[in-house]
């Protein structure tokens, strides 16, 4: 284990996989000479040369579409899309191509494509550079959607993504690139499609995604001070969703808050809440609570952006309400009539 930032962990994964397999190529805007706007591809051009580390024109659909074509014909491309907001321009290649061709060909065509992009608010970047559009991709069967919340998972998930024969879209978080933590040296894989219980507790479960995980841990500490034992689950993969881990925690505590940075309607919090209602209803002491953003585009002003976002305060408030529900209605049988 060695301390690394999230960006360094990504760089470590790319470098190791490019050394391991000459079919791995990296492409994107500003990834070669400049090393990526967050530094994730720093130094790769020097080591692997311009054939494998490629600066592309500003052609998002072209980049992802071409990378899909590379993946179909023997390479293992890793494309960087600078902001996930720009991934909207490449949705055609993902939704009508990468998600479709392997299925149609019954697996004879494989698309070992990785798209790395970053989203999330918190930088006053305004409504075109702060969005979380992971649910657009996660809606598509045929594509893995992963969201590392820490440096070790950033390395582990990227390594697993590069080695996967399926297309993977990895949503990194702009506020996390400079965060530092211990990362396993050498080969390190985080299996795709797995959630992780990162803090154990017995009274309430917080299921958190990407940038919201740090707020969930913060909330857990504050709830602990209030005498509430809190479990935190990091979703890590939106698709496939690790329903077993999520449901097991919900059954254990009987109270669940699902927290994500983006809008609630039709998003991952709704999906996860539905899964828990379907699979753990008998064990719930209260309805599943959700924390997310106000349904407006992210404003640029720091004060307005804060007002739009959910955070640790909202999670603590939501969890407290669930605990209160228990005090008022202590018999879980009575709860089953609710909603």
């Amino acid at each position, binding site marked *: 284990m060695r301390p690394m930032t999230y960006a360094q962990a990504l760089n470590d994964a790319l470098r190791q996989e490019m050394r391991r397999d000459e079919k791995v190529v990296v492409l994107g805007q500003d990834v070669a000479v400049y090393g990526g706007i967050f530094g994730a591809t720093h130094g790769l051009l020097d080591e692997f040369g311009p054939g494998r580390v490629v600066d592309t*024109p500003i052609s998002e659909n*072209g980049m992802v*579409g*071409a990378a*899909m*074509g590379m993946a*179909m014909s023997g390479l293992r*491309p890793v494309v960087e899309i600078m902001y996930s907001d720009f991934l909207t321009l490449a949705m055609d290649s993902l939704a*009508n191509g990468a998600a479709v061709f392997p299925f149609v060909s019954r697996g*004879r065509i494989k698309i070992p494509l990785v798209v790395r992009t970053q989203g999330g608010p918190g930088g006053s970047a305004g409504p075109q550079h702060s969005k979380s559009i992971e649910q657009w991709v996660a809606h598509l069967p045929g594509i893995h959607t992963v969201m590392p919340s820490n440096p070790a998972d950033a390395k582990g998930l990227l390594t697993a993504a590069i080695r996967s024969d399926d297309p993977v879209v990895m949503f990194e978080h702009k506020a996390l690139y400079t965060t530092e933590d211990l990362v396993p040296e050498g080969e390190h894989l985080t299996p795709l499609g797995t959630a992780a219980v990162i803090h154990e507790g017995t009274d309430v479960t917080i299921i958190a995604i990407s940038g919201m995980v740090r707020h969930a841990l913060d909330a857990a500490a504050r709830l602990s001070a209030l005498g509430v034992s809190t479990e935190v689950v990091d979703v890590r993969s939106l698709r496939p969703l690790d329903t077993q881990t999520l449901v097991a925690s919900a059954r254990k505590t009987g109270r669940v808050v699902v927290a994500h940075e983006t809008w609630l309607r039709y998003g991952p919090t709704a999906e996860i809440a539905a899964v828990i209602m379907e699979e753990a209803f008998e064990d719930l002491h209260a309805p599943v609570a959700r924390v997310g953003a106000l349904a407006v585009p992210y404003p640029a002003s720091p004060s307005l952006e804060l007002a739009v976002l959910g955070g640790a305060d909202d999670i603590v408030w939501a969890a407290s309400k669930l605990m209160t529900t228990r005090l008022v209605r202590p018999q879980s049988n009575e709860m089953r009539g609710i909603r």
Partner: protein
Amino acid sequence: MTYSTTVFDGRTPDLTELYRRMCVLRHLDLALDHLSHQGKIKGPMHLGFGQEAAGIGATAALRRGDITTATHRPHAQYVGLGLPLGPTIAEMMGRADGQCGGRGGHMLIADPDYGLLSPSGIVGHSLLLAVGHGYSQKLANAGDVTLCVTGDGSVNSGAFNESANMAALWQLPVVIFVENNQYALSVALERSVHETELYRRGWGYGIPGIRVNGNDVEAVRDCVAHAVRRARTGGGPTLVEAVTYRSADFSGADRGGYRDITEAERFTDPLSIARDRLIAAGASAERVDATDRDARQTVADAVAFAEASPWPDASELVEIAHKWDGTRI
């Protein structure tokens, strides 16, 4: 990646063979039209009547290891690359013996054994994919090329601009073959673009552009062969515009009413051109007719194979869905 197939035998097909392939394509489309009207093929059906020479001529210059991308009107590539017709028709009928077990239908028959990694019904995809295939081939440095079949409708997509630029920028071994059939569904070319000489677009990207009579199968073969040779030897991409005419409706759902029927007279049927040329070169009319008859029989046998094929088993889909939903099974 290497491909095993019988169609790439190392020889450039002569006019006799090209005529045979065009006859097979014509009879295939006649049969598919019939099957559609009978309701045995559901969904859209984009036929290639009138465009046989362009499609068949384009794939004639390829060899094993080359890759072809294709569009929503891909039957010429299926025939030109030599895909077995029984499974091809079965796929269009949604039957179990189709190459994709009925998952793809007529626009999406992927068969890597023939260098056909996936046609696509999305206008512009063939260009995007060709850039990627070409990039792989350039890195592999084995002299393989990608034939990118696309249409006049695609040149106005963003994908065309992005792909042409990248193909030129990286000097990829790609031949961009624009089948200009004059229409994007109901909209005539001159109502879509101001500059109707589409090959001229290549020069804006630094790609040589050339225009060929798309109804003359030998001219198409030779023109594409030249572009393929350039690509194989590191000369980079070429844009070939094959001027032809879609005598077919756009698809089975075409309501018509947008074309002057006399405009088709500007174009001679590509099979007639080839037939006349064969006879002028000394072939007997009986021999040429026999080629046509044999093609009809080949297609009839393939239809019989497809009609006998069972419906596919849906249980595989349940397993796939469980994988992607994350449900343990």
